[in-house]
């Protein structure tokens, strides 16, 4: 199911771990699947001097975490901020269609860690909620967890017609859209 490169990053993930007193920390949870990721960064000269991650998630989520941290390491913050979900998936040589959303985790957590660093530097108060809390109530309404990355197109799994990504029912055929399509 996964390519060799994905499997390699999954079986031998780079940059696993925590940074004890990080300059920035990003925690995200994926509302589609409940997977979670934390990214820690050390910043030096406006570049990412060190980066580590911890991930609770599927094979793709772990591979994505490994890849995104590899890509970020050493990069100036501004450039790291530009790493997109698509870049990560591409660097991994592609992901199965139903796992494309996993790449969101990686870039989102990285950007959040950088933002956290910038916020702290600017003296803003740190974010309160963490991913775990955010996800806690989620399974109560599984029918509404139909989430897509911004800009990602969503097709009704029944009639294959493009539908607004937040629709619980297909606007064309009326079929309920399963969250995991």
């Amino acid at each position, binding site marked *: *199911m996964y390519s060799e490169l994905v499997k390699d990053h999954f079986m031998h993930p780079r940059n696993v771990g925590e940074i004890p007193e990080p300059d920035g920390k990003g925690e995200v949870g994926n509302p589609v699947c409940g997977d979670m990721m934390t990214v820690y960064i050390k910043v030096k000269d406006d570049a990412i001097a060190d980066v580590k991650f911890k991930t609770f998630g599927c094979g793709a989520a772990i591979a994505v975490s490994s890849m995104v941290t590899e890509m970020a390491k050493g990069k100036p913050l501004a450039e790291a901020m530009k790493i997109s979900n698509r870049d990560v998936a591409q660097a991994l040589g592609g992901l199965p269609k139903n796992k494309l959303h996993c790449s969101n985790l990686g870039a989102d957590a990285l950007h959040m860690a950088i933002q956290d660093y910038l916020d702290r530097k600017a003296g803003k108060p740190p974010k309160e909620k963490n991913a775990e809390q955010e996800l806690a109530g989620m399974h109560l309404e599984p029918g509404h967890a139909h989430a897509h990355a911004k800009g990602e197109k969503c097709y009704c*799994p*029944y*009639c*294959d*017609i493009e539908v607004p990504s937040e629709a619980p029912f297909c606007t*064309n*055929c*009326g*079929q309920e859209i*399963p969250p*995991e*399509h």
Partner: protein
Amino acid sequence: MAPIYFDNLAGTPLLPAVQEAMSGYLAQHWGNPSSQHQVGDVANAALEKAREQVAALIGAEPREIVFCSGGTESINHAIKGVAWAQAKKGRHIITSNIEHNAVLRTLRALKLQDWRVTSLDVDQHGLLDPAKVAEAITDQTVLITVMLANNEIGTLEPVAEIAQIAAARKIPMHTDAVAAVGVMPVEVKDLGVSLLSLAANQFHGPAGAGALYVKRGTPLWPLVDGGVQEHNKRAGSQNMVGIVGLGQAAELALAEMDSRVARTRALKDFVTQGLQARVPHVTINGHPELCLPHLVSVSVGYIEGESMMIMLDEEGICVATRSACAAGALQASHVLLSIGLDFAVAQGTLVLSFSHLNTKQEAQVFLDKLPPIVERLRSMSPLWKG
């Protein structure tokens, strides 16, 4: 002695390569293609290979192929699935009155659930006039379903023309191409339909394996709901052995299409001429040119079909009186009545369907054995005043 088999519409002998593909698969693999481990991966690879093979046969994209349990399910899925998906838009369906039971009875079931169906007349050759379809369309029409090739008389319907009319009105069009796919060239792009049904048992693949072609964007609910198989369109663990056979049969049919058509058409011509020369009072049914290459429908006056069929069977020759799935049925065929045959004449009809595995010698045996049987039955018939 092996019987002479002229009932290829009821099912075709598995070709050696299809047998090997199936036996080879089942001897080694049992995995579920949806499983995410190595045993599942093997099955999934076989599934996707078969999908490509079937797609190639009809000029479709692999993603547009939905595997299912055969022609009948494919037809039910197309018709019910499109009707349900558009119930709010309208509840009117257009069809012809010479469709296969799989279409007729599916529509009957929908009628009992408040769908309206317009069933159009055909001419004496079994041809539907596209203009009639255009006239029958209303604002409520959500589906047009017309068969590509009739399985009792072989007539080929003007599906491409009807599909154009349908497309102009943005109405999904389905065609039951079960009797045609694998037997003659069929290209979904040329036809322009949204949905097309096919079955493996028509081209030397196994019974119980078929597919529905679904053009992207066609509104369609599942007939069989459940797991996420077949892109959420058809749930249930796939019949892998059957699908492997279907794929292999599709590949062979595509590769050998021209020679197969030439061969069956020659048999058809030979038998048609032979019948007309040797048996008095016969009618050959269907369109003389726009017809399946492998089918002969012959009505033998004054006698009944089943008794002819059984007497031929005693001589080692297998033919049909009508499609196998209606073999238990007793009433005269609705197709034959629709093209204007008398009730009694309709009852005296045999359907022969050839494959490239049949020989001219076999056809000769049939032509030799039939006349005395016809004579015997006529001598018993109260209708025969000869």
